[in-house]
């Protein structure tokens, strides 16, 4: 119990440190943290699908793209303020996730993986080819307005920091609750043994779709934030490599573990920035580090652990 308290205290201290970091970091490092925050959102959303439900999804950038393009289109065409577009981005990406997952959800592991890769590529190609004339082709959509909150215009990295990490905090809060609930347990069972889960009365097909829906919706909202930060989005930001990167973060950080996923984001997105000094050998070190980390922490840095229930005795008959 004491152990858990220390752990909690450590998390809170780290969160506080992060919250005040823009006060002493320069704009560059704050922007690195912003990047980490956006990827943390993406990784947390993929974690619902890949880590919790155990569905191999290597095309997550597709949902990210749907959200980003929805927000960008609404903002540039109809002048919808970019933060108002946030829920719409989430809903459209979530719907897209369900429609997409519906016919392929019965596929096993690696077959699902290549299908999601394929979907990611199809989306990217569709964006490049200016599908329905709304995506702007290879140029993408530019001139997206900066977000405004209570009349305050967010433009500097420090300001984006609080927008992005505020959203990360809300996400962590909600997802942690989701984990410790009927919904979260159903996903756990699904990952552990789909046949036993169905045999225990869990509607596995429905939960697979729901996992895709939640994960896609959150990736879509991350896409909206991304669009508002970059003010320009183009297809190359949603490449296969992005999907791979998010996938790596989840597995390397610890599939199913929220703290692990965030730590993984810091390592995968933050570490290459530290390697900048190595110039062209940067990615070489990155690849090497990835292998070594995986070999020494084979289940990820912070693996998923069964939930500890407190005060069980009180409930005993």
């Amino acid at each position, binding site marked *: 119990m004491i152990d858990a308290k220390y752990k909690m205290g450590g998390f809170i201290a780290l969160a506080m440190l992060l919250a005040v970091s823009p006060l002493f970091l320069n704009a560059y490092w704050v922007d690195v943290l912003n990047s980490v925050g956006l990827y943390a959102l993406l990784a947390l959303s993929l974690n619902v699908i890949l880590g919790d439900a155990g569905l191999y999804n290597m095309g997550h950038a597709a949902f990210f793209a749907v959200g980003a393009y929805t927000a960008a289109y609404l903002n540039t065409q109809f002048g919808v303020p970019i933060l108002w577009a946030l829920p719409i981005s989430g809903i459209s990406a979530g719907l897209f996730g369900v429609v997409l997952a519906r016919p392929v959800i019965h596929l096993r592991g690696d077959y699902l993986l290549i*299908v999601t890769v394929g979907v990611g590529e*199809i989306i990217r190609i569709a964006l490049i080819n200016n599908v329905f004339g709304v995506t702007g082709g290879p140029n993408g959509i530019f001139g997206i307005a900066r977000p405004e909150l209570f009349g305050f215009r967010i433009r500097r990295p420090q300001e984006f920091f609080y927008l992005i990490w505020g959203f990360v905090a809300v996400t962590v809060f909600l997802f942690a609750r989701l984990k410790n609930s009927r919904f979260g347990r159903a996903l756990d069972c699904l990952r552990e043994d789909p046949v036993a889960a169905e045999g225990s009365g869990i509607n596995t097909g429905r939960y697979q779709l729901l996992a895709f829906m939640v994960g896609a919706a959150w990736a879509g909202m991350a896409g909206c934030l991304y669009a508002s930060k970059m003010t320009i989005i183009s297809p190359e930001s949603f490449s296969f490599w992005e999907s791979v990167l998010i996938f790596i973060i989840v*597995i390397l950080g610890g599939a199913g573990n929220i703290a692990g996923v965030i730590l993984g984001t810091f390592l995968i997105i933050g570490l290459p920035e530290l390697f900048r000094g190595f110039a062209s050998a940067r990615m070489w070190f990155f*690849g090497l580090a990835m292998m070594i980390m995986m*070999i020494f922490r084979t289940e990820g840095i912070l693996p998923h652990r069964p939930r500890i229930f407190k005060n069980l005795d009180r409930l005993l008959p």
Partner: protein
Amino acid sequence: MEEFFQQLTNGLAVGCIYALIALGYTMVYGVLKLINFAHGDLFTLGAYLGLTLLTSLGLSGRLGPLLGLLLLAVLVMGFVALTGALLERAAYRPLRQSPRLSAVVSALGASIFLQNTIMLIYGARIHVYPQDILPKVALEIGGVSIPLVRILVFVVSLLLMGALFLFIQRTRLGTAIRAAAIDQAAARLMGINVDQVILIVFLIGPGLGGVAGLLVGLYYGQVNFTMGWVYGLKAFTAAILGGIGNIPGAMVGGLILGVIEALGAAYISVAWKDAIAFLVLIVILIVRPTGILGERVADKV
């Protein structure tokens, strides 16, 4: 009609290369259930090694084009096979008992590592194969033109695939590989040295990938350090299309994927070619969830 046949041969040529690389994916997957994402980069390594050996040893000048190329292919195959085995030792063996996706991430790391190793050694520039090794002749058959190099690619890849097929079906080692692919634990109980099987798979798969790299170098004349990603993804797609773990499936999948791409480009749209290929893949998987030649596995309850 002429155009159709021309496109068919175009597609088959591309498909042969996909198939050769797909074999490496499928063999490794069959035994280890691991998607070896570094396989595409082993293929790149083959292309670069081929170039280095070709220019430094001048084999084709000394031994004549055919013998020289044969020796070259053997050397490339050997080197890349060794690298593959080393990779297995260093990056995959420590992860054999851990969750499957951990090994996938290690493989992705290995891919980045290999790709950048090649870049650091050879530089980022595009490298070009010498152009005078093979004669530039094209055969005309009923309006369909087939360059000689393409015939070479056909013949070599079909020979290699045939040899592999016979090896897997007819030899003791091949039987051991098939047994380990079906059930590793049972194979071990039957006295099969599974470690040895894995080693052999990691020699043959990358070896074939290396030769594919050499063929691409000879055929297209141009190599760069990122080419493994494009070919790797396509070949992996081909392996899944055919039914991953299934050796004839990889061959069929590769050829079909090549043909779909060519025909998709020809009759629908060039820009949407890859999207069409993936769409066909998805539709095939919806209808046959384990690929064209993959065995249907029922849920055992």
